[in-house]
């Protein structure tokens, strides 16, 4: 599903190294934790998958396509196969929960009957159907992250990328979010989650890829946060 081959990425004209000779492969349906200290390249890894950034060298395949060769106008179509969740939720404050989720379908041109069928379904999945007419600032952090997950998942993407999705949440809420991501993973969606939270990594026992100074230094099936 995702394959990195000797990928290197630097910022500020080569002075800051984010990734260096990074190679790894993630299969369809996997749940992968991307761990490592701050600045180890986790966010860059996710941005490269999303083609938000281009690698300096090396090759990246996502969903069977080498994205370095993807022409500019095809990038939106790549992104429709990738859902994204962030630490800061990135919801639109002037739209309701329902509108925020529906927005993701509207902007890719889905017809109205599809939207009105799929949005309540996914809101039910994240447990927020009753709050569909609320605005983001009327919700708790955990609920906002559920809305963000609903928006990322409503399009049934092949891959769900999560960049520290629980970074702003308390442990109880975090467990709820993790259960939700686990359920999404069980539908066949590949989940890649960058995190600092060793408690959840240790308790989930999923594949762990550890980055350090831009290199993969550990890749464990059913791993834990530290050694």
């Amino acid at each position, binding site marked *: 599903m995702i394959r990195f081959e000797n990928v290197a990425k630097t910022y500020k004209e080569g002075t800051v190294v984010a990734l260096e000779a990074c190679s790894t492969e993630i299969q369809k349906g996997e749940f992968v934790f991307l761990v490592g200290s701050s600045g180890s390249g986790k966010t860059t890894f996710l941005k490269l998958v*999303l*083609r*938000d950034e281009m690698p300096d060298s090396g090759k990246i395949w996502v969903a069977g396509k080498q994205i370095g060769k993807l022409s*500019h*106008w095809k*990038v*939106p*179509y*790549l*992104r*429709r196969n*990738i859902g*994204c969740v962030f630490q800061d939720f*990135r919801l*639109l404050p*002037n739209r309701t929960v329902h509108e925020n989720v529906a*927005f*993701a379908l*509207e*902007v*890719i*041109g889905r*017809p*109205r009957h599809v939207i009105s069928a799929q949005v309540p379904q996914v809101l039910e999945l994240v447990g927020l159907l009753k709050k569909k007419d609320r605005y983001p600032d009327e919700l708790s952090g955990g609920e906002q992250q559920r809305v963000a997950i609903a*928006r*990322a998942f409503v*399009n049934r993407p092949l891959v769900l990328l999560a960049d520290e999705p629980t970074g702003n949440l308390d442990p109880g809420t975090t467990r709820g979010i993790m259960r939700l991501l686990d359920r999404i993973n069980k539908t066949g969606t590949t989940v890649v989650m960058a995190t600092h939270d060793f408690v959840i990594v240790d308790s989930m026992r999923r594949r762990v890829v550890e980055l350090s100074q831009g290199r993969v230094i550990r890749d464990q099936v059913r791993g834990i946060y530290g050694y």
Partner: protein
Amino acid sequence: MAISVEYVVKETTNNLWRNWMVSLAAVVTVALSLSFVGVALLFRQEVDNATARWQSGVTLAIFMNSSVTSLSNPQAKAVEDQLANMSQVSRATFCGQNCAYREYRGMFRGDPTMESAITNPSQLPVSFRIKLKHAAQAGSVGSVFTNQPGVQAIEYAKGEVEQLLKISSFLQVASLVAASALLVSSVVLILNSIRLAIFARRKEVEVMKLVGATNWFIRVPFMAEGLIQGLVGALIGCGLTSFFVSEFRKLIAQNNIKLLQPMTASAGEEVVVYILLLIFGSLVGAGGSAIALRRFLDV
């Protein structure tokens, strides 16, 4: 991918409604700057028209000696032939003694002393009345006949004409400069207010890119919004222009400013200016949005 009209209409109206303060700012900017441009353009047109009137109205008159009483006189004939061969002359008419008498009576109607001074057409000189193609040539045409046998006097409004022409050409250049300066400043103002509006919504654009909206899908509602703002602004600008111009005309009429009275523009010319404003407003609105979005759209 087709963009549904319904989506564009919904997004555009929603956005205009949600960001009505910013929309209002953009509309007011467009309206004010375009109304100035419109006034300047109309003013230029009016000066143009006024000059054309002055020019066509100019008459050069050649008065003949009292010995010349009709066109059959060889000296009059010579002047007539010469005028007919001059390319600067657009029309030359002969005014005989009866014509001069009619003119005299008309000029001094109700003035008993003047009326009693001349009682017979034969007391008046005959003359040629000449219309020139360009008012500026009055002096050179007149000087040709100064020493012609049978010519008594040449009358033309040389000084006045030159003054009028000088003023009108100055006005024309000045209003053109003002119109283009206002045009440039209005483009900058409009672009800036659109950029502000889009900057305020960059999060929305970010989310749209994140979930895989194509660039055109992001662009179209913004451009439609800019188009509507530009169009509404231009409409108000047209209204303001017509208001300013009619007030200006009232002022001229009230204060009886002779020099400016011939300054009018026909309804057709006004409509052309308004159409120009509308086209310009919508182009700047839609184009400005597209340009302002470019920064947020590079993938």
